[in-house]
């Protein structure tokens, strides 16, 4: 009885967590990369915007961001309908700051000599970027990006306090019907998160090995 209920609720929660994770990952990656492009651009106001964004969102607790999007956005008549998208907004905006930093440092850890060598053989700006800088930056970015996604996975749990029925929500919800199930709830929910974390780091390792043959 408990077991079947546990599995079915974990499955529900797992699905919600995965959805949160998937959408936030996608949006944060796109937004974060755009911000990183701003941060390395030679245009001062865009650089300033990128820097401010990172400093603001990296230093704000995620809970406060959730508070602003979940309670505050409807006040502006934005996203009134959906808790899910408000949660995704908070998670994406927060995570984008970290993606931005990771991508930026991925670009910056490509040695200047590589770009100079590319310029020296007569490649233009776009060619240098496309054939030399970005492929190497991409490779530098994979491991830290995986770390960001793992942090994001864990951060999705904050949504459970803001109207979302994700994995973490099931912890207290199950106790209601099965008092005394706390330890099993915790262990099995933790196992679900560890599973996601393991998949992400496994995928990153695989990916890194494929693009990183030369090391």
């Amino acid at each position, binding site marked *: 009885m408990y077991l079947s209920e546990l599995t079915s609720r974990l499955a529900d929660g797992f699905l919600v967590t995965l959805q949160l994770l998937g959408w936030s990952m996608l949006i944060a990656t796109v937004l974060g990369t755009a911000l990183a492009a701003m941060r390395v651009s030679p245009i001062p106001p865009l650089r300033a915007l990128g820097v401010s964004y990172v400093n603001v969102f990296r230093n704000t607790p995620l809970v406060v961001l959730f508070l602003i999007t979940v*309670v505050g956005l*409807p006040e502006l008549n934005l996203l*009134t309908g959906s808790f899910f998208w408000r949660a995704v907004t908070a998670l994406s905006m927060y995570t984008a700051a970290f993606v931005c930093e990771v991508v930026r440092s991925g670009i910056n850890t490509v040695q200047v000599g590589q770009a100079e060598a590319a310029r020296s053989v007569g490649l233009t700006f776009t060619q240098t970027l496309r054939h030399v800088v970005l492929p190497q930056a991409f490779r530098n970015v994979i491991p830290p990006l995986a770390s960001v996604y793992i942090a994001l996975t864990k951060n999705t749990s904050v949504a459970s*306090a803001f*109207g979302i*029925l994700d994995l973490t*929500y099931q912890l*207290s*919800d199950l106790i*209601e019907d099965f008092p005394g199930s706390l330890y099993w709830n915790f262990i099995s929910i933790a196992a679900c998160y560890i599973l996601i974390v393991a998949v992400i780091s496994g995928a990153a390792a695989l990916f890194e090995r494929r693009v990183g043959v030369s090391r």
Partner: protein
Amino acid sequence: ACGGDDSEGANVEVEENPEFPEGSTMAEFAEAGQIEIGVKFDQPGVGFMAPGADVPTGFDIEMGKIVAGALGIAPEDITWTETVSDNREPFLQQGTVDIVIASYSITEERRQVVGQTGPYYVTGQQILVREEDKETITGPEDLAQAKTCSVTGSTSLSNVVDDYGAEPVPFDTYSDCVTQLQNGSVDAVTTDGAILLGYAAQAPDELEVVGETFSEERYGIGYQKGDTEFCEFLNETIQASYEDGSWAEAFESTLGESGVETPEQPELDSCQ
């Protein structure tokens, strides 16, 4: 700053030099001239600490003052301590607080570990909706597919989800639920009527408690288990407040603000 127009609430009578049997709990309190009461801080109308205020307000608070008054303790000599749902029993057991008046439903399980007497108020699960929806949502039957907010892990939520097919939206506090109701993100909030009334009282034009209660919650006062003498005193005090009108006054100045009628005075359990 909410509910009553002044933070003192209704005027409570403070007994001058009450007489108590030597060595009784009441005598100790009266002697000390102070008492520590565990209350909720986050339920407007019931037990609520406004930001920046130093004393809470609400029906539970008024009941606390009545009890203290009977012990000869003035309201300003009461120490209000916040209790949350999970720590009421341990706080009583460890003596962190002297009594608990915190929307504390009387149940058999709780009576195994602490003393509970009353009820001084009987309520039940009800539904809070926006004023404009009071025609469309009139009871739990209308909650099918409706986004319904309550506190994470509460029975109230599983009741409406399992029995009436509501779409659950769990939050940490009822206040969050009410905020979401006001900004249109959820359609209904459900929990004890008393708590809902507290919110309705704060925004009588916007919010409405609808339908009959569909469960029974009996709020009691928690005390150290086994102190029958003190239990008797609490019962006498509550009974006296029924009779001298201070109970009704306490209700009207808090939960009654929303315009609901003052309910029947519930029959008290006897102390074993």
